[in-house]
């Protein structure tokens, strides 16, 4: 058993080496396929992250009057959080707001002095509300307004701010991103499909050129596994080597584009995304290559094993 495995492995390696030109061609085709898959991963990561960033930029701010009792504020928070369309409600107490304000103006002596002279904290508490979906903001705003409006003149809310104009811009961007994601994934699926098909066909052709060899092997009484094994080993080697080349190329691309992607798409740095998701990228690229090589060889040899 062990001898067979050793022989199959060795034969696969020797095939790979002696068919240098054919191996080079198969490797190139497979590398292109894997690169396309890798770029797809990057592309969707960038789009997802920029969409996420955009969504988080939209929020509703609720400003409370300074006299608003904390218990009422917390009760309102609970009510808002109970809404299914609300993702999160961040509550900043009066002290939090003051600290944040002071932190922002730490360099401005004048303002800090003014606060000290005032003695009392003039700022009210606030909510930052994030919705699960940008389209929900209007209904949430309305809900908050209705809810606090009922309290009449003694409303604890000073102002509910929600920028409709900002929303429109963000809405259209969101639409743009979602539709480009949809079109993009369609094109990419097509790309991946075509390149997988090309790789598959290349390997089929390589094995087609060995069909005589396969029939000779059958005639000297070699078993199916013994004939098929070396071809699969060669296919797997194409996958591993093409995978490693692609991983390296993708890393260079990520390194090169990293800083500009941070600026352009906001947040995500391609290089650090690559490193932090390396196990996944490795699995997809090298695993994909190995699977592609093994499966195409397996199927291609099967065709000539019928004698």
């Amino acid at each position, binding site marked *: 058993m062990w*001898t067979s495995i050793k*022989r199959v492995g060795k034969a696969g390696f020797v095939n790979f080496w002696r068919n240098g030109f054919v191996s080079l061609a198969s490797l190139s085709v497979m590398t292109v396929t894997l690169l396309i898959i890798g770029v797809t991963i990057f592309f969707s990561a960038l789009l997802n992250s920029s969409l996420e960033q955009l969504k988080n930029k939209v929020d509703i701010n609720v400003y409370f009057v300074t006299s608003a009792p904390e218990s009422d504020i917390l009760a309102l928070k609970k009510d808002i959080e109970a809404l299914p369309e609300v993702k999160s409600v961040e509550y900043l107490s009066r002290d939090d707001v003051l600290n944040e304000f002071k932190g922002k103006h730490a360099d401005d002596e004048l303002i800090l002095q003014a606060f000290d002279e005032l003695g009392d904290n003039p700022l009210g508490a606030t909510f930052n509300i994030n919705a699960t979906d940008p389209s929900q903001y209007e209904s949430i705003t309305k809900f908050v307004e209705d809810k606090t409006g009922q309290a009449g003149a003694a409303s604890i809310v000073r102002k509910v701010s929600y920028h409709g104009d900002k929303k429109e811009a963000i809405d259209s961007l969101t639409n743009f991103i979602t539709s480009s994601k949809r079109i993009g994934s369609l094109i990419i699926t097509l790309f991946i499909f075509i390149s997988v098909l090309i790789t598959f066909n290349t390997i089929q052709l390589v094995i087609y050129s060995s069909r005589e060899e396969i029939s*000779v092997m059958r*005639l000297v009484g070699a*078993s199916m596994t013994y004939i098929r094994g070396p071809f699969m080993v060669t296919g797997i080697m194409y996958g591993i080597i093409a995978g490693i080349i692609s991983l390296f190329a993708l890393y260079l691309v990520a390194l090169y584009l990293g800083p500009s992607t941070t600026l352009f798409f906001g947040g995500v740095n391609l290089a650090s995304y690559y490193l932090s998701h390396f196990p996944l990228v490795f699995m997809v690229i090298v695993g994909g290559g190995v699977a592609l090589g093994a499966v195409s060889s397996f199927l291609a040899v099967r065709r000539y094993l019928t004698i």
Partner: protein
Amino acid sequence: MIHFDKVMKEYPASGRVLHDINIKIQPNEFVSIVGQSGAGKTTLLKLLLAEERPTEGIVFIEDANINKLNRRDINSLRRRIGSVFQDFRLLPYKTAFENIAFAMEAAGRSDQEIASDVPHVLDLVNLGDKMMNFPHELSGGEKQRVAIARAIINQPDIIIADEPTGNLDPISTNEVIQILQKINDLGTIIILTTHNKGVVDILGRRVITIDQGRVVRDDEQGRYSL
């Protein structure tokens, strides 16, 4: 030992290529099968290698009906039959040594056996110095001798030689036939198909003549006559 029992073979496209073949071949025999191209010689050999199944009738090797064998048994049957072809059929990306070693590996022989037997058999066919050459570096006669070495390496009971001299010059033809005779002397059945009148006449052994899929002559010490 080998028995074609009322064998008929029909292809959907070309119709009946073998009619009612009854042949018995005993151990130690050297049988030449002659006939014009398309007479059915190669089909007969394919039936013996279980590459094809007869439409009617049975092919026996010893007591085994080879048409009822499963894949695994077909593999071990083929290891008991060495085959040599007109176009050599060597593995192009393997050296002479590796081509022969492959047949031994397929038969599950150990590395030690391979290391000792392959050089020995290559010496037998006078190719001891071309062990590490690839087929494209060998002449036609040399290639055929590698093919013969591969055919005999597993000490088969039967050697099938399908026009082995068809692509060779007279000197190489002679060498190949002498090697086949030597193998036969050691007790292996040789089944040779050929168009070469000289070869058949020199051999002076059993000759089966096939014409249009039928056995028309079967002489113990025959000559080439069509």
